[in-house]
């Protein structure tokens, strides 16, 4: 735990810059991919968002959401995934960052529906070979 904490402290800290895109910019209306998304398919991108609480421990992937995955105990008996989520496949096992910390993910953008062989998780858009940093 101590180790993780120290590690977090020394994570490189990214600031938002003009080449950082938002998850919603990947979509035009109707959940279709935007021109921007199509133009970046297969290319290296920087995307801002939040790490959803991981589905399993020691995974090498996580789900990036546009806002923290808050669940109201009064409103909901369970959490629903929003439509516009991003599957992030890391280079290594993921170091969990609290789901309320703004992040910037860097990696290769992949469009198109794909089922993750290991988990069965269905995604429409992914960032692979990814690094991620806290945005401060």
């Amino acid at each position: 735990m101590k180790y993780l904490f120290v590690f977090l402290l020394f994570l490189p800290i990214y600031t938002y810059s003009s080449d950082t895109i938002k998850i919603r910019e990947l979509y035009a209306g109707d959940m279709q991919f935007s021109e921007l998304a199509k133009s970046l398919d297969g290319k290296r991108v920087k995307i801002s968002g939040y790490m959803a609480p991981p589905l399993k421990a020691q995974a090498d992937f996580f789900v990036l959401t546009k806002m923290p995955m808050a669940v109201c105990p009064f409103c909901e008996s369970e959490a629903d995934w929003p439509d516009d989520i991003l599957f992030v496949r890391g280079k290594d096992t993921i170091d969990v960052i609290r789901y309320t910390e703004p992040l910037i993910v860097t990696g290769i953008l992949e469009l198109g529906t794909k089922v993750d062989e290991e988990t069965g998780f269905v995604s429409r858009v992914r960032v692979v070979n990814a690094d991620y940093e806290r945005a401060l």
Partner: protein
Amino acid sequence: MKKLLASMVATVVAGTTFANDLPQQSSPWFQDAQNVLMQKMETPRLRGQAKNVILFVADGNGVSSNTAIRIFEGQAQGLLGEEHELSFEKFPHLALAKTYNSNAQTPDSAGTATAMLAGVKTRQGVVGITDNVDRGDCVTALDNQIPSALHLAERKGKATGVVSTARVTHATPAAAYAFAADRNFEDDSALSDEQKAAGCVDIASQALTADMEVILGGGRRHFIPAELTDEEGKTGRRTDGRDLTKEWQAQGGEYVWNRDGLMKLDPNADRVLGLFESSHMEYEADREGDAGGEPSLAEMTAAAINVLNKDEDGFFLLVESGRVDHAHHAGNAYRAMMDGVAFAEAVQIATQMTNLEDTLIIVTADHSHTLVMQGYAQRGNPILGLSKGLDSQGNPVTEPSLAKDGKPYTTIAYVNGPGAVQGERQDLSNVDVEDMDFVQQALIPMSSETHTAEDVAIYARGPWAWLIDGTVEQNYIFHVMDHAAGLSQ
């Protein structure tokens, strides 16, 4: 002193002429306030029976949230914002409601909706039952059901309906038509076999047996079986194999699932079920991006009134803006503001489509949230923006104010929630704090920002609306609606 008082009385009676000219008399502030005074003196206390009653609830829209929405809407119209009025803020009568549940200082929507709709406070988490039943004990609840204003209106021969941007089986609309020992009994999969055998019925099933003419909102998944995939590609939740949308149609009702269907509704239709999303409808800010296309709250309200107006005996309608609450829980003020503006537009439509003389309209919130407007922002400062103050002469400055940590801050913050700062506070200098996805900074870390316990406002117009006055218990709202329309008679 006596003389001055006498002259002030004379002034009030005579209107805008003053015995002694006051130096501030020519100020627009002065004139505006004088006009309001005249208006208030001429506001009649309507005593006729209300034919129609509409209860509008913006879930979670406390007084601070409402103030922020007022400024947000005003600034969107090019005003400074603070001086603006939301549609229902023009209503003549106002009270404050004490919102606590019978067992909780800070309430939830199920207990508060039951208070407003059935006239008695009850426990957190339960719908349409008395407070001597444990939450979840659906068998005991069967003998402790309490009819709502909607049930009474139905019994009196009026048309009835519910409209919500949340699931129509969610706490607030459910309290209008259902009885449930737990707000989560939205479909039969939430009930055990023993509970079902004992006679417990899920909320969606009760939506059909309540005999309502209008049901519009989200929550399609609770009406269709798990084996069925809906029009937008999502599966149902029911495990009893029933398709309630089919059953509704078999009973002669219209069923629509998107905006297009609602807009093209047969003008002669006298019963309509509209389920526009599998779960909650989209936030107003995201509505355009919806796969099937969703109507706005104002469009649903107008469609509801069009159908209900066909009944000569009048109608009872509950309209809920369900997601001001959800956006606050997410710590995301932008979406709360947008849903609040959509709520005010829905109230506006209802005032245009009904008569002051025969329709009682009550507008309120069920509870508040931790949103605060903090710091000393200058007049007209963007409501979602960084706080910019005044110089020592009282003139606006162009640079954001800085906190003790040397960093700027936004006017809107939450006391708790996902925006809570852990460790060093983020420097917002280069962050687009007015972005739709921005999560406002908060103090206490929680996965979900919470409700709060302070009073909420009640606004009213129409017959007997003047009984909305003072600081009252929330369950008093039912009693005004009942008295105005003679629902229980």
